[in-house]
């Protein structure tokens, strides 16, 4: 029985961690703007500094 008790308290503890994470996310304003991040990811990283070029780099695999 004590095993069950530990498991229940552990699951509740994990759930509380997620709740804390949610509260932190709301408080830090992560839910305020939900449309811009979806656009932001579309922009590639800019070309390396010093290369004044507006041509897209060849689609070579880069690590």
């Amino acid at each position, binding site marked *: 029985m004590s095993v069950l008790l530990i498991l229940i308290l552990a699951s509740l503890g994990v759930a509380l961690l997620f*709740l804390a994470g949610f509260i932190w996310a709301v*408080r830090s304003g992560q839910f305020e703007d939900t449309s811009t991040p979806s656009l932001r990811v579309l922009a590639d990283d800019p*070309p390396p500094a010093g290369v004044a070029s507006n041509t897209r780099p060849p689609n070579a695999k880069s690590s």
Partner: protein
Amino acid sequence: MDRVAFQPRPTESAAAKVNCFHCGLPCVEQLVEKDGKAFCCDGCRLVHDILLESNLGQFYNLNEHPGIRPPGAAQGEQFAYLDEPPTQAKLLDFTDGISSRVTIQIPSIHCVACVWLLENLFRLHPAIGDSRVNFARREVSIRFATQKLKLSELVALLASIGYTPHLTLDELDRPRTRKPFDRQKLQIGLAGFAFANIMLFSIPVYLGLDALSGPMLQKLFGYLSLALTVPVLLYSAADYWKSARWSLQQRTLTLDIPIALGLAALFAQSTYEIVSGQGEGYLDSLVGLVFFLLCGRWFQQKTHDRLTFDRDYRSFFPLAVLRRSTAGDTPVTLAHIQVGDRLLLRHGELIPADARLVQGKAQIDYSFVTGESKPVPRSPGDHLYAGGRHTGGLIEVEVLKPVSQSYLTSLWDHSAFRKQRDDPINTLTQRYGRRFTRLVITIALGSALYWSLTSSLGRGVSVMVAVLIVACPCALALAAPFSFGTAQRWLARRNIFVKSALVLERLARVHTVVLDKTGTLTGSAAGKPLFEGSPLTPEERAMVSSLAQASTHPLSRQIHTELAEATPPLAPTLSHFKEIPGSGLEATVGSRVLRLGSLSWLRQLGIAIPDPSAHPGSTVGLAIDQTFRGAFHLGNTLRPAVAQLLDALGNRYPLALLSGDQSHDHDAFRTLFGPKADLRFNQSPLQKLEYIQHRQATGQTVLMVGDGLNDAGAFQQSDVGVAVVERIGAFSPASDVILDAAQVPALADLLRFARRTIWVVRLSLGLSALYNVVGLSIAAAGLLSPLICAILMPLSSISVVLFATSATSLAFQRFGLTPAR
């Protein structure tokens, strides 16, 4: 880049097909070439160079022609007023003397590339720190080093790359600090968390697992559930306690009273059962109820980030104007304008206060203020009203009245602007709720009395608690939010934006429809110009088209659009282009001289013109090489399908037309509106408001459809105000509904849909009442157990939610409102 050498120079006919590399507009007036790229003007080329130099060339890879044509040379001095300490204190979000953060609205943000560029501003200027774009709000928030970069310089920098900030008078009053976090989301999150965990603790109990594990575990589950419930009741359900107390103090019955009673009864009964070890309580139902109720509230509060429903004249007026003084011409904020000041106004600027024209020839476009569709010429000494837009060369005016006391702005002092319009007490749900509450309390007290007399007092109390638990109007409180929320979402997809659910209810009760004319039934871009005269050859059409394109005057735009549709795109290059404000356009193409303008101007130039036929609206004459070729008739053109709309509306509602315009179109509108409609012309903004008041005095619910500032009073007075906008996000005065101009023909469908939505709400209320009857009979039979409660509660809530959303969606599709462009 070698390619450039081999590329043939664009010939005159090929030039038409060249679009600017930066902004994508066709290169008509000018063709600037650099590195094999074509630009429509030096401004665009300059922006392109700046971006490449700052290593921001990526901008052009993100979108095709992402740029915005810069409005012209922007200088720091133009925005110098932004550096005044009082203005700055109101504009900055934060400052510590070293670095500051400012949030500015930039309406021209339109694509991924804009977001990327504005978030990489730090590459343009070393004093700029991080910047973040909020795309939905068209806002950018920038941190910058105050000592190295002034706010005015920052704004000028943005303007120089085409992102001119939208600085209007209301910016000064906008609250700078936002709510630190969203309380409602936290409430829902907490309730959802507790709901899921209590369910987890309840399932073993319902399945009888406690027989295996013994009473110890059952007790643990009980106390854990109780511990999870307390914060939900105290924090998540806080608004229900508050509003129940409020309605008791106001001595009004609202739906929140049975909700609060039900919550309290559930909690008391469950605590008693758990502590005394008699049972497991109803805590899962209790927390689930709070969770569903909060979700319903959240769903109903659909907000449209780009739209503001409560704007007044201050968000139409600029933040500053140019003042002429002995020390020179300096920009000042409107707040500092005093009577007697001399102001300088350029082409396209707004007259900020009632004034007298001192110098220059003005053409004032009052269409947004008075509804008068034709620009009026004014000469020195004439009186100018605030809100008119000046077109033409530089003028100088003398201020006669302070900004807040001008002809137009004094409208906002009317008592209509102080009354509370949204009455949350008188909604459908609340009216139904009042009857429901009375019934529930009667049944609860009645059964308690009956059982106390026939059995024992304890039995009476427990039956009363059971009745209160079962009668908790969860499904009832969900019916309206989900119907209205769904309706609002569907309508928003069709570019019809409704301020709140209450508006839909009022829409369904509309009795009289009042319409504005200019900008509402007629549109500047809606009608096709009619050409009268000897037919033009395709080359001539192309020439006239590119001449008209070179001007920003609304009439020229209409002519260009009309001609461009019918002709192949071979715009010839213009030379010696001249725009004479208030008169017309002149240019040479090859060896031919083209003139497009007012008939009197053409006559002055010695061109013989036959007597024009009588035609309402504006007339633009065309002369090629001193020969009059004909005239374009434009203006006052009806939007498409207005006749059908008025027909559909007229069948059901009394109609009225309120126009600020002259009555020269009276006969045409009489035929459109039918013999019974009230047609009024020459109406001032205040007269419009009073007309609505007069109709309301006879007990009618009035819908006002309009567009401009002159309708602001009527919107405020009417039961529902519908503002028609040509562009979503453009300025519209405070209203309840914002409607895309293309959706004007859908007005009749909108009203039908609102009525149908109310129907759906009524049906949903009936459905939830059915559940209450079932629940009450179970409770009365003494069969109510936590398990039945745990099944019945979510079942009723979810089925009502499903019914409300799907029936509303179905109704929407049945009515098939015209799809958005």
